């Protein structure tokens, strides 16, 4: 369909045809917005990552040095590795723990359902900083958990649960738990209970029904939830910063200090790109393994 500009213009003037096709009117604003404020800044970031920092100023010289540094120096590789490991752990823990809770919340017919849903949502509303602070108080050497453990005689001296990766993993898992629950719930809601009923009618017991009907049908959503949790965990800043202290370093805390303290913007950009690649790479991997799209839409 060739666009005859002149006749289109004439038709517009005569009021016969809207100036723009209506689908464009609708599609253009969000597209433009995201292009200018999302795509372009990210491309910018990518280009800065190939520049170099010298004596406080960015030098206009293309170089792979930032990537070479981040991918070959053991110190940085360890940071990347730690970030990956921690995020995988948190994603697994959250998804595993949230499935039962999500299952219960979806299937329950209790009168208290709205209240339970509200309770499940409530921690999320407090904001990550305050919840992390709460964990700091609980996990400290003089904190609640250690106090309890020592009082009941399980341990003699306090276990170190803060300012290390363990504490961060615990805190992060809790912080993301609500998120995981609701994402899994979304996919479980899509599983028609009639199918379960049918399976049971055909003689399957509850366990078999679950394993052969419910679980497979909800799996794409569960995988999606795993991925989302992983993505958020990999990019988390507040929890590792607060619970981890100065002896813990993940990609986001590294990027933060490079950007705001050391002021090495190219290096910070390169690390950011690596973080994005880590997240996207995991998505592609999961898609490959899953065989179908794990995202809604």
């Amino acid at each position, binding site marked *: 369909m060739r666009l005859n500009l002149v006749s289109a213009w004439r038709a517009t003037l005569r009021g016969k045809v809207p100036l723009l096709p209506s689908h464009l009117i609708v599609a253009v604003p969000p597209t433009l917005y995201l292009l200018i404020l999302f795509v372009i800044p990210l491309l910018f970031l990518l280009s800065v990552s190939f520049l170099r920092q010298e004596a406080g100023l960015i030098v206009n010289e293309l170089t792979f040095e930032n990537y070479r540094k981040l991918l070959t120096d053991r110190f940085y590789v360890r940071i990347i590795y730690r970030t990956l490991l921690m995020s995988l752990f948190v994603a697994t823990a959250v998804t595993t723990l949230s499935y039962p809770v999500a299952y219960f919340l979806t299937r329950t017919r209790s009168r208290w359902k709205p209240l339970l849903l509200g309770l499940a949502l409530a921690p999320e509303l407090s904001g990550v900083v305050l919840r992390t602070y709460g964990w700091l108080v609980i996990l400290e050497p003089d904190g609640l958990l250690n106090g309890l453990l020592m009082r009941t005689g399980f341990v003699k001296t306090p276990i170190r649960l803060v300012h290390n990766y363990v504490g961060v993993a615990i805190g992060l898992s809790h912080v993301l738990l609500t998120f995981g629950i609701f994402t899994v719930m979304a996919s479980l809601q899509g599983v028609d209970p009639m199918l379960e009923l049918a399976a049971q009618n055909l003689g399957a017991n509850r366990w078999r029904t679950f394993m052969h009907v419910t679980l497979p049908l909800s799996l794409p959503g569960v995988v999606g939830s795993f991925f989302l949790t992983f993505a958020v965990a990999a990019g988390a800043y507040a929890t590792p910063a607060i619970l981890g*202290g100065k*002896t813990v370093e993940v990609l986001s805390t590294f990027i933060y200090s490079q950007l705001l303290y050391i002021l090495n913007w190219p290096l910070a950009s390169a690390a950011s790109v690596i973080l994005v690649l880590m997240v996207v790479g995991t998505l592609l991997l999961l898609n490959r393994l899953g065989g179908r799209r794990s995202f809604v839409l």
Partner: protein
Amino acid sequence: MRWKVIQRVWSVAVTVVILWSSYLATGAAPSRELVVNAYGGEYEAIIKSTIIEPFERKYGVRVIYDGTGSASADFARIRATRGDPGWDVVVMTAPESLLGCQLGLLERLGEDRVPNQRFIFHEARKAAGPCGAVQELQYMSLFYNTKRVVPPPTSWRVLWDPKYKGRVIVPDIGNILAVYLLFMAAYMNGGDQYNLDPGWAQIPSLRDNALAVIESSSDMVPYFEREQAWLLPYWDGRAHYYKNKGLPMDFLIPKEGSILLVNTLNVPIGAKSKDLAYEFVNFWLSREMQEKWALAYTVGTARVDLKLPDEHRRRHVTSLEQFKVLKFPDFLYIAQKRSEWAERWKRIMVR
């Protein structure tokens, strides 16, 4: 029909309210305001009552106070914004003051703009550079719990003593205390500020002895208040403040000596209210304010002609002689090497 009109009016009104509040939220500021970035935490109250409020009253202006950020964080912001961080006056230390001046990010604070500079020790003025005004002097002291560390420690080596494992707070490299501690470690092991390797060799064991590695001095407070930490390097001024509060702690200079800290007031070149900023700096350096400040914040001063109690003079640096006894580091060197040291420090600290 009527309902629709009401709805429409309501949505317009809400939109207007939202837009108006967002305009207000962007901080459309009235004139005659000064933005000051200085101490946070509990010290905020001290500076507000001692310096800020009298200044506001005397000049009839409003001061917006920001207590966030260590000196190095503030300086990083000044650099990142090319001298326009959003503050008119900022408290930093000599290294930042010198480097910032060299980079052209700070305004010069000579006697033309800040007349009271002529009362400051010559050496202190030199340390702060042409863009700094020294409002106080401190030194790194050994701060210890008098109940738990008996008899009182005599050497910096006590921080490495395995007897106190898990009871020591180690400052992080972002805090200049860490730099000074590194220097002392070097001095004690045959090096000096230009040859720090003997000091670096001591840092891993220091980390292992630590309860926590913390950047902000104020962030260290809960640990010693709750007696989780018994030993730490700390500024004499702040240490004295907590001692006065009744904590079972005291501070001293160990036999190896210590290092002086020159705190500075600086005005970034992008400051909006420069004249007011210079007035503020001058105000803080006035005799009356210096005397008040020295006693309120329990610190030493760089002004020559103050009337201070002997007890105060004994514990803090207020005279040229004392100034010369303590080690006086190469501040510009510190500023230039800072990020290199930060990276090396990180490599040791991060497990």
